[in-house]
């Protein structure tokens, strides 16, 4: 192989991507860290303030409220979503036609954009015109104010998100189930193991890696929940359903305090990054155990 020409060729092939990658991802990453140490507005005026933005974040009750909302949303979404999609995968891991149709139905909502999902769910949940209201009223009840009652806005966002998100984790679990060798079940059948024994002794332990992957991917995703809250409840009433990313958006593009918004974004980034690193570590360890 011709060494020198290969070297030049190598840079020619990877260069275009690397240039964009450095300019549009790595550079903004460091720019954001720098921004978080400044007081800055949209028009370029900026002044170095050291750690002031971070100190402000830790003292800001609104930031703590947003973090607590994010935590509640993440738990209320990730736990039910994992249980539901695991159950669906177990039920639908079959070579029948009806199972294929069901899989298609459960995956369909995942292809919609957040705007369409919130548009649909607004007119499911809204108390005067929504589908739930029509059903509850027909049964003689009073429709709950899902989008304005401070106790119901977070559950409403969680339900909407779960409905939107079942497809992907279900597919991951199905793929995980396909990886389990059939002879493990044949051996169990010879031992007269019942369905529950097979589930607890073979299926779930074999799915450990997929389970970790689903929980961690979903946690990282839901920590960054944004569009649903912005469109469905606008974070209200009075911040009761405002997650961290919506706060960052409001601080940056409503109040134009870019430095403070950047500091909040860096803090959330640390949180998401730790979840991602735990995921790499845990999936790697589970993979090693399987060998």
């Amino acid at each position: 192989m011709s060494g020198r020409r290969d070297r030049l060729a190598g840079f020619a092939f990877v260069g275009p991507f690397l240039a964009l990658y450095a300019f549009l991802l790595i550079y903004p990453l460091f720019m954001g860290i720098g921004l978080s140490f400044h007081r800055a507005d949209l028009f370029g005026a900026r002044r170095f303030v050291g750690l002031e933005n971070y100190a402000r974040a830790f003292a800001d009750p609104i930031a703590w409220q947003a973090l607590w909302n994010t935590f509640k949303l993440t738990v209320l979404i990730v736990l039910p979503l994992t249980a539901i999609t695991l159950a669906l995968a177990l039920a639908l891991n079959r070579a029948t036609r009806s199972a294929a149709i069901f899989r298609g139905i459960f995956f369909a909502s995942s292809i919609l954009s957040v705007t369409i999902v919130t548009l649909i769910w607004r007119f499911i949940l809204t108390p005067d015109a929504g589908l739930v209201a029509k059903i509850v009223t027909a049964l003689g009840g009073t429709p709950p104010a899902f989008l304005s009652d401070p106790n119901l806005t977070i559950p409403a966002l969680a339900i909407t998100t779960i409905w939107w998100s079942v497809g992907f984790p279900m597919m991951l679990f199905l793929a995980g189930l396909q990886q389990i060798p059939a002879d493990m079940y044949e051996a169990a059948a010879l031992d007269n193991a019942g369905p529950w024994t097979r589930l607890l002794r073979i299926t779930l332990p074999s799915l450990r890696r997929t389970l970790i992957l689903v929980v961690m991917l979903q946690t990282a995703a839901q920590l960054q929940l944004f569009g649903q809250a912005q469109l469905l409840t606008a974070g209200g009433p009075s911040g009761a359903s405002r997650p961290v990313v919506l706060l960052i958006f409001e601080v940056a593009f409503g109040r134009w305090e870019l430095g403070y918004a950047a500091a909040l974004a860096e803090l959330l980034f640390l949180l998401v990054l730790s979840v991602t690193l735990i995921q790499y570590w845990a999936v790697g360890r589970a993979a090693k155990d399987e060998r």
Partner: protein
Amino acid sequence: MNPRARLSPLALAGVTLGAAIMLAPLLWTILLSLKANSELMRDTASAFSGPYTLENYRAILVGSSVTHWLLNSLIVSLGTTAGVLVLCSLAGYGFARLDFPFRRSLFVFVLLGLAIPEQAVILPRHQLFAWLHLHNSYPGLILPGLVAPFGVFFMTQYFRALPAELDEAAMLDGASRFTLFWKVLLPLTRPAQATLGVFTFLGSWNDYWWPLISATRSARFTLTVGLASAQMNYAQTSGLGFLMAQAVFASLPILIVYIIFQKQIVAAMAGAAVR
């Protein structure tokens, strides 16, 4: 578990109930979109019975901004998809097949990007694009989507799996690096191109946060941003049926892509789990 066994009645009931919950909101949306706005104004329960009309869909096609937003979404999504396929194929081939200084470190450097979420870079990127006067433009909407570290990783893995004898045979015939890449190897990566392409298209089509802050003029709205503004100004617009018809209309292109590329989507999901 026997994959050919039928579902137990209890499991079947559960799955059917779940499917009903998945479908009911979609059917409700379609029903609302087929009703006259004045009737829905009185009572949305009127959607359960006729008369139904296609008037709302006609209103979209004749003189609404929705068709314009659809065109913007198509330009942005197709532009992003084409760009990602070109950049990731080139880089994937380079990392998989060529020997150059710092190759390993550069590849690790790209993989680090997988751990950087959008919200960590979106504010400074917004500033950067403001300085470059790229907001409210197609390049401004397309460029951020071209940075796809996962695509590079995916294509590199695919190129690595192709037999090395192909390269040697072609080089003996005197083919240049680029001819080898373009004529011999690239055609073999078509399945990977399809998978990466579909995912990039879906992601770009459904992207919300970046177009929301970058395209602030209605003329450059993508469908997601346009529909967001339509639902926020719902009280002033021409009615619920029209709004829901927009939702259905905006889902059609993505539904068509999903139906055509179902196989690639499922295969890619399986790949993601095994990884």
